[in-house]
């Protein structure tokens, strides 16, 4: 079994998590390379406890995973969670095209007078 109990978090959770600018910054830093809380706090304009708090939200959303390295914990993006972001666009376009279909068919219906 893999240790990814939170990997089933929904895409909505992932996007809510990234709705915060600081959390998005944390996420983007981790996209560059895996790193510790201390390394993140050194390059972001927030305190270590704040970074830890943001990491917890990202972990709960399935976007980030942690692994121990000596006395520290190294955080990295969860490949399954990041795939969820791509899936978000996938579903966005499905929804958009469904909406498009409704609009074009309504505007094509021959039984009604066409509005200018």
């Amino acid at each position, binding site marked *: 079994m893999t240790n990814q109990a939170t990997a089933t978090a929904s895409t909505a959770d992932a996007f809510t998590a990234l709705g915060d600018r600081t959390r998005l910054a944390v996420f983007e830093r981790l*996209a560059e*390379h895996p790193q510790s809380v201390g390394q993140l706090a050194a390059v972001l304009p927030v305190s270590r406890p704040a970074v830890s708090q943001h990491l917890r939200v990202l972990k709960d959303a399935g976007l980030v995973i942690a692994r121990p390295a000596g006395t520290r914990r190294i955080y990295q993006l969860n490949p399954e969670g*990041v795939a969820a972001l791509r*899936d978000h666009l996938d579903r966005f376009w499905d929804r958009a*095209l469904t909406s498009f*279909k409704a*609009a*074009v068919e309504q505007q094509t219906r021959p039984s009604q007078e066409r509005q200018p």
Partner: protein
Amino acid sequence: MTPKTATASVQTSIVVDAPIDRAFSVFTEGIGTWWPQEHHILSAELAAMVFEPRVGGHIYDKGVDGSECRWARVLAYEPPNRVVFSWDINLSWELETDLAKTSEVEIRFREEAPDRTHVELEHRNLERHGDGWEAMRDAVGSPEGWGSVLGSFVARLQTATPA
């Protein structure tokens, strides 16, 4: 440069009961009649969406306060068959001003019958949106690895759909 990979794109399609000319015009100039309401990046309330029907034109949102957000550049405009526009929006649904970090959307229209049109959409070059996408690709190592990760995610989504 990193090679273009087929995995950094999203593809979807739909069949609409409308002639190809109408499907094309509603998709482009009529974009404001169907674009999902929750996905606008203006801070002001939306007044209208404008699709400028020419290569070099823009797609933009107009706010009730007069503000504008040009979030796409029209890259190809070939009525009624094909349109391509850039996606100048970043991963957090904000305007991306670094054009090297933008992806593109191609829509192809194909007549299936005089009153039925097949619409195919591809949102590609997603890897350009920045380091996040590259890290994602590196994290999974190969297209095969990527595909299997995505496959298991999709399978999980399907089984996790609420009743």
